[in-house]
């Protein structure tokens, strides 16, 4: 047996045992409880900081992050509603009869040679 084979065998045994150990640790209810509690605490702290900032901006009569998020979300909703209406109008105009093989695009950039 070469030294390489010996090392590989030893490594495989170590890998299996360590994986098993880590897996059981990750499933251990106490470990998970401590991790969850820690994460929950971090989230709570962030919420407190965010709310303090939110109140500050509100007191200054300025829009805060949440206001901006809601406004942008509503704009997206409106965009979707416009699509709904477009579809409805199209259906009404065509009397539900659609031409075969219709070329259809619904974006500003109609042809994009897409390279991510």
């Amino acid at each position, binding site marked *: 047996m070469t*030294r*390489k084979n010996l*090392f590989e065998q030893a*490594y495989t045994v170590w*890998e299996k045992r*360590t*994986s098993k150990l*880590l*897996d059981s640790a*990750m*499933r251990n209810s106490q470990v*998970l*409880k401590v991790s*969850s*509690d820690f*994460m*929950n605490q*971090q*989230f*709570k702290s*962030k*919420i407190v900081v*965010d709310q303090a900032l939110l109140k500050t901006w509100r007191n200054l009569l300025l829009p805060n*992050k949440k206001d*901006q*998020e*809601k*406004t*942008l*979300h509503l704009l*997206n909703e409106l*965009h*979707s509603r416009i*699509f709904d209406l477009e*579809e409805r109008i199209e259906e009404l105009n065509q009397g539900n009869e*659609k031409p*075969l*093989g*219709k*070329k*259809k*695009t*619904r*974006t500003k*950039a*109609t*042809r*994009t*040679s*897409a*390279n*991510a």
Partner: protein
Amino acid sequence: MSFEVLADENANRPLKWTHFVPGLKHFRPANLPIGSTAKDLVHSENKLKLFRYQPLSATTNSKGGPILLIPSLINKSYILDLLPGYSFAEYLLKQGHDVFILDWGEPTDEDRFIGLETIVFRYLQRCLQFINEATQQKPNLIGYCIGGTLAWLLALEKANEIGRMCFLTTPFDFHNESLLSEWSRLKSFDVEKMIESTGNVPWYLMQSSFHALAPLSPIRKWQKLAEKSGDQEFLDRFYALETWGNDNVSFPGAAFLDLIKVLYRENSLMKEKFELAQHCLVTDSIDNPVMNVYSQTDHIVPLAATQALKEIYRGTEYLDLPSIGGHIGAIVGGRAQSETWPQISQWLSSSN
């Protein structure tokens, strides 16, 4: 000891080890032609983009109908169009299919309010409708991972507008033995607090959870890289996959809440009937032919989670297609390319 052995090995295999550093230098992610199969943007809504690939062959396979590729919400869509000669989308095009692909985009802060209902019954449904109108044929859906779950949810309401459905390592039974399932169902995990605090679930939180599922796997990965550092083809694929694996996107907050509550905790997909926001969904409603591609060694979506499709599917044409590799390898690995892709293409070419 290990360094000593490696040094010995170095002496025995000078070619491979001397290729290691040049191999690493080769890593220029920006230069890799990732996701480069020519495609046109045909529809967009919020961050979602729907692309239609330009045909590669003169004859398109009208018999099978168009195909819509639905990637997972967690990663970028180019896993299904990785590199020229190593792209699932390109392969389907070469077989003459008319292929569309969804790109979910990167959610920004305001997208925290987007739930699964919006994603499935607005965004995805509109894409389906769009393809229906543009091609006058029912699209066949190919969903990868959670993308498959979303396709299934849509089919529960719009089965008559869909052709065939192919699920690639898709979870259906969320009460399984995987760590992800256990963590998600923990009572001490306060998902509402998390969403309230973070808005969208940050990609680094998601990625670290996935890394924690197999913490030792990077050692084998880098070992393989060292061994194959002289193999240009391997290097290209390796770096492309690494680029994709580290190119994660955040998860929309409300959608994550739905994912954990409706799918992981209530395991709704395994029920006869359940509600998702305003939609009452019944499992009996799907009679479309389905193909289930899975891997026995998938540590993210275990076998039992994908095989549960057999239990909930009430239709007549069900096909299992086992693949080799892990969650990603089973879909884009070498064996998948030579064995799984041809079978999927052939199956999709069957008339509806």
